[in-house]
């Protein structure tokens, strides 16, 4: 019943959702010369900078697998999370002028941001695959399981987006706080280093981070050419569903009060 309601609602507002996403695309690329090419160039360039810094300056390496492929596979997924959650956080506040005048279901704003960055994310898979081939890492049949990790990543990000956008309405300081949190999060997630580099006790702590598991799931397939452990499958789904559920509950409970905090 609850699910049926959501589906009917989504259908009703799907055109608005589509318009909001296409608006974001148009606005993002309208005044840049290279336009949508930036979606491909940006991750490559970030990867290049990080690779130079971490493999040359810090002598970072990942035994057995190519460091560039290792870096980029983690980077595209974490970039999705950090960009989407950031945009989703400010989406409700940014659309106050609309919320204040017309009834629109408010969840549509964080949702549209997560989907918009999601489409961008799919574009960044192109440079990832180029790097996979260029570095001789190659592909395998297990790549068909990757969407599972991506869907988990999406649900987790959407849940975070709901929580953050609701909290930031009441507490504008959240924009600054989250900037720091995401920076910390970037370094605490094994993106540019191997988790085996840190002590065993700390590893347990690092594994409480859901982002590690989504990235790990993808890396097992992409870099090590094997099916992820059943445990990894469960942690991915469990953590993302839990966060999404918390997000939905927080958002629903608070959304009627948004209007007083304009």
């Amino acid at each position, binding site marked *: 019943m609850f699910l049926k309601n959501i589906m009917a609602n989504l259908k009703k507002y799907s*055109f*608005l959702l*589509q*318009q*909001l996403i296409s*608006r974001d695309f*148009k*606005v993002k690329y*309208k005044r840049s010369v290279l336009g949508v090419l930036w979606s491909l160039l940006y991750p490559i360039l970030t990867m290049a900078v990080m690779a130079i810094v971490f493999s040359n300056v810090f002598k970072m390496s990942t035994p057995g697998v190519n460091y560039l492929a290792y870096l980029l596979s983690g980077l595209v997924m974490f970039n999705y999370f950090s960009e989407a959650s950031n945009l989703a956080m400010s989406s409700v506040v940014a659309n106050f*002028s*609309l*919320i*204040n*005048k*017309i*009834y*629109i279901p408010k969840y549509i704003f964080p949702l549209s941001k997560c989907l918009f960055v999601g489409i961008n994310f799919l574009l960044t898979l192109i440079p990832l695959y180029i790097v996979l081939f260029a570095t001789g890492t190659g592909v395998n049949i297990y790549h068909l399981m990757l969407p599972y990790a991506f869907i988990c990543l999406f649900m987790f990000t959407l849940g975070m987006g709901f929580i953050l956008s609701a909290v930031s309405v*009441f*507490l*504008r*300081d959240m924009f600054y*706080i989250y900037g720091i949190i995401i920076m910390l999060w970037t370094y605490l997630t094994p993106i540019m280093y191997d988790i085996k580099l840190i002590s065993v006790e700390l590893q347990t702590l690092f594994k409480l981070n859901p982002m590690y598991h989504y990235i790990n799931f993808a890396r097992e397939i992409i870099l090590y050419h094997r099916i992820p452990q059943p445990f990894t499958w469960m942690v991915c789904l469990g953590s993302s569903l839990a966060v999404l559920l918390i997000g939905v509950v927080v958002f629903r409970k608070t959304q*009627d009060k948004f*209007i*007083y*905090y304009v």
Partner: protein
Amino acid sequence: MIKVDNVSMKFNLGIEKNFSLKLFFINLFKSKKNKPKKETFWALKDVSFEVKKGEVIGFVGSNGAGKSTMLKVIAGVMKPTIGKVTVNGNICPMIELGAGFDPELTARENIYLNGAVLGYSKEFLKSKFNEIVDFSELRDFLDVPVRNFSSGMTARLAFSIATIVDPEILIVDEILSVGDIAFQQKSEEKMKSMINGGTTVLFVSHSLEQIKKICTKAVWLDHGTVKMIGNTEEVCNAYYESQMK
């Protein structure tokens, strides 16, 4: 059609001050006695009335009397603190036109975006696209970003999009002064044709002239309560006299 039942609406005036992190922490350590009392403000107090299909209701009252709040509650933008509002029929809210515009997008793109915001379907917008453009008289500017539009042009486009539907309920908050004289007349005619077509209209204006001209019934709001309700002429005159004192 619309039923407003004992609706009250409370605002916390102190909210803005209380919600920065710094003050939040300071307040944590303050004893309860020292805490500043949250100032509450009742924008609407126990308001009840009913609107039948096809009626044109005018709302009058001084600034801050709760007129716009009333319309927002009916439009579903705000939920009343106490009481209930029942609305049967689709609402077209013309509260501040063009809220859904993105200045970076062209007029053509904005027609679709704003239409979607107002809840129109894709097919509907496609079929009505030319009608919207013709009514706004902005065909030559279709591919110009709205940020380059004059305020009059923006308002014309917004009005044309908002009124393309035949809504069952139309909410109008001071918009008949849109664009130049020619367009003002055109928009007034459009409003009239909608009213004649049986649309229920809720209308807020400070121009008693306008209210007398188009409304069949008037509600006078004063400090959040209904002071008077009934015949347009009588309500407007009573309100005018109270203001002149």
